C-alpha cells in the first residue's frame, strides 16, 4: 500500500502535476532517497537510506548479473575506480551496485557475479530486493524527468550516481568516461575543502597547465 502510494507520487511528479500544494520541507537525503529494505550479496537485510547512504559519500550504479552489453565494462571500470580509491573505500566512500532484475538476481547470484568480476572488495555492496522497491529507487536516483527515458529500464546504464549525503551533493558521471574523469566527478562530491586547500589545488592546476604548454605548446588534457 505504502509502496503504491509512493509510485503514484513519483509518476505524478514525472508528469509535472502536483495534486495539492506541498508543505515546506527540507529537500535533503531522507526526503530524496527511499529507505527501502534490500538484501546484500552477503544475504543480510539493510535499509537503503538509513544503513547505506545516510551521512556518507557513495557511488551507485544499476546492473544485473546477465547483462552483457554495458554492465561488464562498467563493472570493470568500477573495479579500477575502487583500486584508485582503495584507501577511502569502506571508510568514507562506499560503492553500491543495485540489480534492476531482482527476480533473477538473488543474493547468491549477485555474490557469484561479484566474485567473477573481482568485485568482492571492501566497501562495495551488491543489492537486490522487492521489484517495486528497486523501481522506486531507480526512479529516485536515476530519473531524467522524461517518460520515455524513465520507463525504460535499459536507461540504467546511463550514469553513475555519486551522492554525498552529508553535504546533500548529488553528481552524475557517464560510467564509460575515462578513469581520470570518473575520479574527477567523484571528487566533485567530496567534503568541502577549506579555501587554503582550494588555493593550493588551483596553484597545482596552473602548474599542470603551464607544464602542458611547455611540453606540447598547447593544453592537451587538464
Amino acid at each position, binding site marked *: 500500500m505504502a509502496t503504491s502510494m509512493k509510485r503514484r507520487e513519483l509518476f505524478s511528479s514525472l508528469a509535472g502535476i502536483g495534486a495539492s500544494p506541498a508543505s*515546506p520541507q527540507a529537500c535533503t537525503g531522507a526526503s530524496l532517497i527511499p529507505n527501502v529494505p534490500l538484501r546484500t550479496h552477503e544475504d543480510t537485510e539493510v535499509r537503503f537510506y538509513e544503513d547505506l547512504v545516510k551521512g556518507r559519500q557513495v557511488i551507485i550504479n544499476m546492473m544485473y548479473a546477465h547483462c552483457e552489453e554495458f554492465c561488464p565494462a562498467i563493472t570493470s571500470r568500477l573495479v579500477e575506480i575502487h583500486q584508485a580509491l582503495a584507501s577511502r573505500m569502506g571508510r568514507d566512500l562506499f560503492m553500491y551496485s543495485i540489480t534492476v532484475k531482482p527476480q533473477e538476481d538473488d543474493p547468491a547470484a549477485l555474490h557469484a557475479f561479484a566474485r567473477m568480476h573481482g568485485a568482492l572488495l571492501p566497501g562495495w555492496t551488491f543489492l537486490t530486493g522487492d521489484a517495486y522497491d528497486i523501481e522506486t529507487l531507480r526512479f529516485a536516483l536515476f530519473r531524467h524527468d522524461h517518460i*520515455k527515458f524513465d520507463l525504460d529500464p535499459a536507461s540504467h546504464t546511463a550514469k553513475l550516481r555519486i551522492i554525498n549525503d552529508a553535504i546533500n551533493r548529488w553528481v552524475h558521471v557517464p560510467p564509460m568516461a575515462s578513469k581520470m574523469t570518473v575520479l574527477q566527478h567523484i571528487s566533485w562530491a567530496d567534503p568541502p575543502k577549506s*579555501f587554503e586547500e582550494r588555493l593550493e589545488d588551483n596553484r597545482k592546476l596552473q602548474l599542470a597547465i603551464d607544464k602542458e604548454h611547455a611540453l606540447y605548446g598547447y593544453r592537451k588534457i587538464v
Partner: protein
Amino acid sequence: MSRTEDNQDGLDRRTVLKTGALLGAAAVLTSKQSLVLAQGAPPPLAQPVLCGTTPPVSPPTRPFIDALPVPQPALPQILNPLPTKAANTGAGEAARDAHQRWEQFLPLVMYRMTAAPSLHQHHTDLLPSFMWTFNGTYPAPTPLNVYGVPTIVRFVNNLPTTPPNTTFGVNEITVHLHNGHTGSESDGFAGDFFSTGFFKDNHYANAYAGIDAFGGIGDAREAMHTFWFHDHRAGFTANNNYLGLNGMYIVYDGKDPGHELASPGSLRLPGYYGVTDIPLILTDKRFCPAANGRNEVFQVVGNGAPGGDKWVVNGKIQPKLTVRRRKYRFRILNTGPAKTWNLSVIRPDGTQAPLTIVAVDANFLPSPVTLTNRTLDVFVAMRFDVIIDFAAFPAGTSVYLKENAAQNVGVATADPAPGLPIGNVLMRFDVVNREPWFPADTPAIPAVLATMPDPIVPDASFQWNFTLVGGRFLINGLEFDANRVDHVVLKGSAEEWTLANDVAAGNWLHPVHIHFEEGRIQSRRLRVSQNPDVFQDVPLLPEELGRRDVYPLPPQNRVVLRMRFRDFVGRYLIHCHNMNHEDAFMMVRWDIVDSVEELTRKRREIDERRMLAGLPPQYTKQGGVV
C-alpha cells in the same frame, strides 16, 4: 495635458503602486531583517527551505500588475588587482591559459560580475525567492559595449560554501559568452569551472571574426550584436541557470550604434537601450507555497531543472509595458533551461499582428522577415531581434505577446482578446501617444540589413551523429568528457559539418549550439524512410538564411552547415542547449590547433582511442590529413 502633468501622473501612479507593494511586503515579512532588506541593505540570507520533491502548483499571480523591468546597464569600473595576461593565481584568479591576443586587444573597459545569493521577487503577489544572481539582480546587469573597445569581465564567485548544500545548484561556475569569438580561456569551457572565493577574468576582444585575414578588428560583415552570458558548469548548467546565473551582453558598431540619429552606415533601427530597444529575457519557473517569508523557486536536489508553470519575462511574471506609437526593437532571448517559446503578437480583436525579425542569434539577416501567420519559435539560447511597430495601433489599446503553451495564472480573468486565454499571455503592451520628449519614430526598416561574408569554402567535411542508446545521449558514439577531445580542426581552416539527429525517444528537437564562430546553414534534410535510407530536402525558412550559432535539429533531420575556425586556438564545445540534455552529457569537446603536425597527432590519437573502444575511426576514411 502638458508633459509635466503626464509625467507627474505616471510617477504618482507608480509611487502608489510601489508603496502598496512595500506595505504588502511589510505586512507579511514581520522580522526586522526583512524590513531592512526592503530598504536595500544586504542582510545575510537565510538558506532556502524547499518544498519537497513533488512539483507544486505555483501560487496565483494577478496579470499585468508589475511593469516590465529592464536590466540596468552594467557599470564599468577599474578592477583591483588589474587584469593580467597570465592568470593572477596569487590574487585568487582561477587557473587558466594566458589570454590570447592580449597585447593586440588590451582591455579598455572592465566590469565585475559577482555571483552570489540574493532575493528576487518575480511578482508583487509573490514573496521574494532565494536565487543565485550576478551583482544581486536577476537578470544580470547588461554590459553595453562597442566593437573595437576590448573588455574584461571579471566573474567573481561568492556563492555560499556552507554545507549542507540546500539548493540544487553547484557553487562552481564557468561563464560562457554566447557566442563570443574568444580565446578558449575566456570561453567558459564546461570543465573550467572555479570555486567560491576565486575569480576569473574573461577577455572579450569585441572584434569581428577574421582578425588574421582582415587585420584591425576583423571582418565587419561578421558583426554580432546580441550576446548573452551564462554559467556553463559541466553537469549543472541547467540548475545554475534556473537559479539565475545569466544576463545579456550587447556590442554596438556603426551599423547598430545604440542610438537612432542619422550616422554613416547606421541601419537606424530602434536603438535606445531600455527605451526603444528592450531585452525580453524569457524563462519558466515554478514556485513553492509561501513559507519563511519566501516563495522559493521549486527545485529538487539531485535533479535537473524542473519545468515551470509561470512564464517569466525579465524576471517578472506577466508584466506590462507602456509603449509609444512608434517602432520598438525587442531582443528576445530564451535562457532555457529547456522550454521552447512559440510567440506571436495579438491585437485586441484576437488577430495576429505582424512582427519583423531583423536579427537571429545576434546576426542581422540579409533582409528583414515579417511573420504574419506563424509563430516566432525561440529555442533555448536563441536570440531574435524583432521590430514591432506600435504605430499600427490606436492609443489606448493593449496588444499582447502570446505564448502557445498556457501558464498557470491562478486568478480567474476574462480572456483579454477573443480566443486568447489569459494563461497564454506572456506580457501586455499598453499603447499610448508619443509625448514630445520621447524619441520620434525611426525610418522604415531597410530592405537590406546585412551583406553576408564571403562564401565559406570547406577544407573538409565531418558528421556529428546524435543518438540515444540505453538511456545515454551519445555524440559520435560517446558521451561528454571534458578531458577528451573528439574532433580537431586547424586554425584558419573551414569545414562543412552535418548534424544528424537519430535520437529515437521523445521526438526531441535538439537546439544544437556550436561555440566560437557563427555558421551558415547550407541545407536541411529529413529522413522519410529508414530502410533504405531516404532523405528529402526541407526548404530553409527565410530566417535560416543568415548566420547563426544555434541550429534547431528535429528528429530524423540532417542539418548541413559551414563554419570557419579563425584567430584563436583551444578547446571548444558543441552541445544540445536544452540544458537538461547538456547536463546529461549531450556535449562534445573539439579543439582548434595551429599546426598540421599537432592536428595529425591528435587525430591519430582520436582514431586509436575510438578503435580501442570498438568505435569506427573518424579520419582514416576521409583521406585527409591523417
